[in-house]
């Protein structure tokens, strides 16, 4: 490995891969049983954090930033005048192994621009993973990006060596994709996703009968979409997301606030702010769908097509549905407890456990560690004091915003003063 050449390639190909937000390295089941290198059976570990505060847990690189496509939102697009580079398969293997041995990373996240055609590219990605597993005896985490349009046979092989597979659907709506990525076709994303989904189901079923059946993508598949590049609203975004969770059993959908990188007229211009708050609200909504028992239509629908930026989506839902409250924490079921603004699932479990011993009052709830700042308006407990009185939704919202010290307060100061 020539140090200077590798160094230059790494700079280029890490820089180009940084817009992929997936950093998960958990959820797999690959124990080091063979005195080899690595173990990805536990939870993932963030070994460092970038200066923008994102977790660094995998070596996240492109195999190449040569690309035959010309997607407007992508730095690697064909028409962009940038330095191009491509790793050799062995170089990626050496980097991964040597970084892993020094405890810098949990494994590899390998994506790629598309040279020549989908299969040619996918084949190389697969051979990196294969080499790591078979020649280096590597049990660390491997996340491979599926190349849209790759053949079923290659997708099947990919899943045998990778822990996770993903294909980015890029833009939440088909119309948006047509506008920004005229070369790409949604059906090409779906095909490998469907193949992987079916293989996972099949391998799992076989494993129940034949124990020696190899693992297939044990950490499942994920996808990512860019937010704020193509004018879609939050309702459309979460509809898409919900569809992918339901139809393809995805483990995660990632939302990536668009970072302006081009002067293309179809896109927000360089210098416009990255929609980080919006991104955050979408993740909160995603969580409500996956862990809190909400149906997406309760939060976003034709009447409410966009999430509030100044309050979180659960509070927003609660304020629109005051008739469901107050909830009695001493008797309510888990589903309703989880719907109280300010209560996370951990608090819900604590309440369910604690209330078996005694009826809970405000003092108990505070000790358990519940953020009463928001929750107090939506619950009753073993106490005569009931905080909501007959407050209107606007009044409650005002009170909560007044008493919260959100890290975003500064950027939202205009909105805040409305309720002051």
């Amino acid at each position, binding site marked *: 490995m020539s140090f200077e050449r590798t160094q230059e390639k790494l700079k280029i190909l890490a820089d180009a891969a940084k817009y992929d937000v997936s950093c998960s390295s958990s959820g797999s089941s690959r124990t080091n049983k063979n005195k080899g290198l690595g173990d990805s059976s536990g939870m993932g570990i963030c070994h460092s954090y970038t200066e*923008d505060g994102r977790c660094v847990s995998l070596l996240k690189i492109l195999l190449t930033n040569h690309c035959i496509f010309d997607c407007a939102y992508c730095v690697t697009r064909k028409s962009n005048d940038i330095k191009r580079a491509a790793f050799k398969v062995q170089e990626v293997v050496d980097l991964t192994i040597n970084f892993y041995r020094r405890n810098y990373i949990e494994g590899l996240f390998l994506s790629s621009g598309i040279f020549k055609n989908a299969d040619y590219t996918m084949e190389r990605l697969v051979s990196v993973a294969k080499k790591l597993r078979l020649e280096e*005896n590597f049990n660390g985490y491997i996340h491979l990006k599926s190349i849209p349009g790759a053949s079923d046979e290659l997708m099947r092989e990919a899943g045998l060596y990778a822990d996770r597979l993903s294909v980015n659907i890029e833009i939440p709506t088909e119309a948006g994709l047509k506008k920004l990525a005229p070369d790409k076709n949604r059906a090409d994303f779906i095909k490998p996703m469907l193949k992987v989904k079916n293989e996972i189901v099949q391998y799992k079923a076989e494993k129940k009968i034949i124990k020696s059946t190899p693992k297939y993508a044990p950490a499942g598949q994920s996808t990512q979409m860019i937010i704020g590049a193509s004018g879609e609203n939050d309702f459309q975004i979460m509809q898409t997301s919900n569809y992918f969770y339901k139809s393809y059993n995805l483990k995660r959908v990632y939302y990536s606030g668009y970072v302006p990188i081009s002067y293309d007229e179809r896109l927000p211009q360089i210098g416009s702010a990255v929609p980080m708050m919006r991104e955050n609200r979408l993740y909160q909504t995603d969580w409500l769908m996956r862990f809190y028992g909400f149906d997406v239509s309760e939060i976003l629908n034709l009447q409410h097509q966009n999430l509030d930026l100044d309050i979180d989506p659960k509070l927003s839902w609660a304020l629109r549905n005051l008739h469901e409250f107050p909830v009695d924490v001493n008797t309510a079921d888990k589903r309703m407890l989880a719907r109280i603004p300010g209560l996370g699932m951990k608090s819900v479990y604590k309440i369910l456990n604690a209330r078996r011993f005694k009826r809970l009052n405000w003092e108990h709830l505070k000790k358990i560690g519940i953020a009463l700042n928001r929750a107090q308006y939506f619950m009753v407990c073993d106490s005569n004091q009931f905080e909501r009185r007959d407050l209107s939704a606007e009044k409650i919202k005002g009170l909560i915003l007044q008493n919260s010290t959100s890290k975003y307060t500064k950027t939202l100061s205009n909105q805040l003063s409305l309720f002051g």
Partner: protein
Amino acid sequence: MSDKKLIYDGTFDGFLSSVFYVFENKIKAATIENEFVAQSGLFSKEINIITEEEKANRVWAGLKSKLSARGSYQLYYAFLSEQNGVENVLLDYIRYAFSNALNVDKDFSHPSVLKIAQIAKMVGREKHRMEAFVRFRLTKDAIYFASVEPDFNVLPLISKHFKGRYADQKWIIYDIKRNYGLSYDLKKVEIINLDFPAKFDFTKTDDNFFAEQEFEFQKLWQDYFKSTNIKSRKNMRLHIRHVPKRYWKYLSEKQPD
């Protein structure tokens, strides 16, 4: 009446032997101190405790039968915090545990139980951070060497993690503050003490000791760390919350160019 002051050798077994002594002699007012920090008091009587594995094991087995698995590991975690006076909080907890028919490890209304749970949580956090922030550097002797300086004595807690993960390479994780380390020889992990040259700087990768390719991989890692940052999303407050400054001097990505 004066307190009895028990001096032990700083080991967990030594501490448990002290607890044994307290119960065996039915001592009502006792304090337990590590011999390295103990200062002789004017009015207390000092007793030197001899560490006896058998007695220690008996106390430990007793505790395990009284507490949940989580409760007993919290005791051990809290002990490893080396916080001033933690032995006495532990003793209080242990007395409470043995005097109660029920399992007390979730009785957070008891001050010692609450305190131990809080300390154990801090130690657990640092254990996790060490699993993340250990940076191995390849020596000329083909050993992957890491120097650390944790606030708490977490080496015993991370041994299993690193043994499972790096089964095919020789490695040493050395705690500079406490002057001992873990060493894995491809078969087992042992506790070692090393003498370092007088001018040995743990934060520098001196080419007298480290392999040539070590510099290259550190440089590659630093480059990677820089390239993967998105400038328009910079948020140093968040960055420092995740990677506290006290760890920076041993992180290769945080070394000056």
